[in-house]
């Protein structure tokens, strides 16, 4: 074994040398691009400030502080072999994340990450298998959208032992054991607030009752978001929004569709279905449309604009939210590259510049008991005005 490692190290060192020699050009052009896009990004986040809550105020302060020292961004062209591991392959959002990662790899002048995922029906065991094989392959980093909850921990621990960096995105390791940090698409607590605000805007000032249609009972990100939603609803401000029920459609169109209709039967006074999953929201919207229920029961939650366009136009899903998965993949690739090449450390307060997306600071994750995160945020809330 050590024989192979030596060989690998030698190859890696040679590759690094070669890359360093040839990378001058790309580095320069990257710098220019970074400077340009950092500005426009600041403007963007201003526009979306309404959606971004207190959390954002903190990070914006931090950003301003860091702006001066982080202009350079990462040194490009270093050797970096990584795997981008989605929950499973074959659906649009993860493919978009890979697009972002490819874009970042291009800018950083390094290898494209292998985009490897399990099949949808074998997600947990498949993710563990890929992480374990990654340890054998001796990759520099694995970027995981974790679908296995804490079950991924032992495999991740073995991988980290080989010196690889593990970064989670989209869905973290709940205990944070093994991961360097979590690239959070949005603040998980904020998700609760955004869902409550959308419910408020759809139900009107006098409030009303609604139900949640989630993915599987085992999905850790959805569970965290629903918990956050319940917390927000417990405050006085939202006391007139009543959560009737939480049901699960297991991210299958058919089951989500049936569950949405069953909710309608079970709760005659329900006025809204909130679905924090792209499969669920599309199925629920289709169900309401098919049954001519859109007048009485609206649908909202987290959805892909492409899949929701028709339902927003028909008024079934007047408002829903999501973040950009392309940006998420892009940011994840940047920070992972920085960590694996030793240019930043996974420590509270460390900051870096991520190409066109501007500057970010690593912070303690306030939504988990332990762990660090980089907060991408904010949400984009889609309605008929901006869905195009």
């Amino acid at each position: 074994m050590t024989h192979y490692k030596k060989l690998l190290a030698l190859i890696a060192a040679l590759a690094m040398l070669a890359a360093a020699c040839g990378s001058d050009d790309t580095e320069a052009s990257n710098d220019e691009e970074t400077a340009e896009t950092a500005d426009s990004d600041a403007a963007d986040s201003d526009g979306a400030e309404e959606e971004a809550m207190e959390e954002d105020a903190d990070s914006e302060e931090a950003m301003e502080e860091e702006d001066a020292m982080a202009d350079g961004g990462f040194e490009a062209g270093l050797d970096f072999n990584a795997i981008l591991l989605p929950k499973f392959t074959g659906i649009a959002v993860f493919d978009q994340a890979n697009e972002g990662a490819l874009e970042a790899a291009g800018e950083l002048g390094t290898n494209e990450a292998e985009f490897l995922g399990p099949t949808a029906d074998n997600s947990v065991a498949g993710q563990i298998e890929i992480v374990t094989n990654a340890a054998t392959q001796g990759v520099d980093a694995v970027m995981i959208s974790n679908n296995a909850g804490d079950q991924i921990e032992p495999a991740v621990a073995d991988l980290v032992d080989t010196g690889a960096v593990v970064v989670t995105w989209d869905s973290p390791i709940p205990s944070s054991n093994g991961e360097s940090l979590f690239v959070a698409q949005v603040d998980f607590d904020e998700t609760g607030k955004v869902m409550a605000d959308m419910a408020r805007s759809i139900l009107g000032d006098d409030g009303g009752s609604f139900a949640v249609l989630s993915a599987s009972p085992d999905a850790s990100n959805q569970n965290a978001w629903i918990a956050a939603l319940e917390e927000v609803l417990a405050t006085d401000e939202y006391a007139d929004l009543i959560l009737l029920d939480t049901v699960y459609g297991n991210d299958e169109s058919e089951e989500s569709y049936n569950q949405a209709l069953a909710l309608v039967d079970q709760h005659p006074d329900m006025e809204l279905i909130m679905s924090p999953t792209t499969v669920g929201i599309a199925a629920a919207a289709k169900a309401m449309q098919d049954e001519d229920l859109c007048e009485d029961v609206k649908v909202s939650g987290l959805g892909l604009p492409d899949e929701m366009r028709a339902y927003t136009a028909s008024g079934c899903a007047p408002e829903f939210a999501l973040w950009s998965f392309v940006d998420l993949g892009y940011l994840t690739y940047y920070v992972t590259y920085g960590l694996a090449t030793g240019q930043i450390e996974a420590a509270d307060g460390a900051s870096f510049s991520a190409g066109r997306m501007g500057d970010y600071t690593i912070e303690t994750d306030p939504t988990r008991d332990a762990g660090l995160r980089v907060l991408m945020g904010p949400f984009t809330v889609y309605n008929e005005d901006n869905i195009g």
Partner: protein
Amino acid sequence: MTTMSMSRLGPDRLKELTLAATIFLSLVVFGLLIEGYFSGRFFNRVTLGVAIVAVVAAGQSLVILTRNIDLSVGSIVGVSAYVTGQQLGNHPEANVVVAIALAIAIGAILGLINGLLVAVARIPSIIVTLGTLAIYRTVLIAYGDAKTITADTLPSWLVNLPKSTLFSIGDYDLRFMFALAIGVVIALQIAFGRLRVGRRLYALGSNPDAAHQAGLSINRLTVLAFVGCGALAGLGGFLFLARFGTITVTAGQGLELQAIAAAVVGGVSTLGGAGTLVGSLFGALLIEVLNQSLVRLPALSEFWRDAVLGLLILIAVILDAVLARRFNPGRPRILAGTSAPGREPGSAQAITETGGTATGGAATGGAP
């Protein structure tokens, strides 16, 4: 269907009646348990929901009748739904007949591949379709390239198809999709009763040796059953597309187990030769009624649904076995210890064994 004179249809008719009674009974029980249970919406829900499974289960029944099984139907539904959706996105001017024909053709081709592998290459169907279950899905994922078919790319007639109603009695609608599904199933059942090919399928399933002795082309019949199953799964894919609008490459995953469950609850014997397509329709209906009703039982937490459903299916098949034994004690398959799946035509093992047993008398399976 009174023209069916084959004696085996006696117990089949009995099974259909038992199932209808069971469905009626569950409706009454749930009606007592759930307030506001009977509504036009519930009726529409069940009928729409059952349309897809019923069509796929009918195809599955054809194959099971011939002592085979098709595990690949879920993947066929996925391929058919995805490709049809994609083509309709590119050619929005296409009408409903063309779309359905395309979906059926895709399914039939995939079914033909299964059938040829089973009948001509002589591979047991469970192996063939376990393989094609994976292969068809793999091809679809590679072909689909993680693109999702979305409702806004589809012609509006398709998106609105689930809503289109032939006629209504009060709140109770007869939806086009449900009418299409039961229409197809019943028409096939009648056709099988009247046409020679249908009787031959039963003959093949109940006794392949005798069927062969009688000069039936077993290969052709087996291929035909698989093509029929694929075609019906293709139609199921069209219904899936119309109903959900959003089609990912994982569409239809797991449908094979639902279809088999519907067929066996519907009294189609996995030993071949017994059961009807209408039975499988009732089976699908019973499961759908249970599924739709269990989600509405407030006392039953979300997590209890699968357990209760599994138990009810078990009870249904046990009842079926017990009733069949009582009413028809002569049926050999009910005898204790003979529940092994039937041997099937074209098995590899069979070829080597045929050597000593190619004479006709063995067909009755007498003891030495």
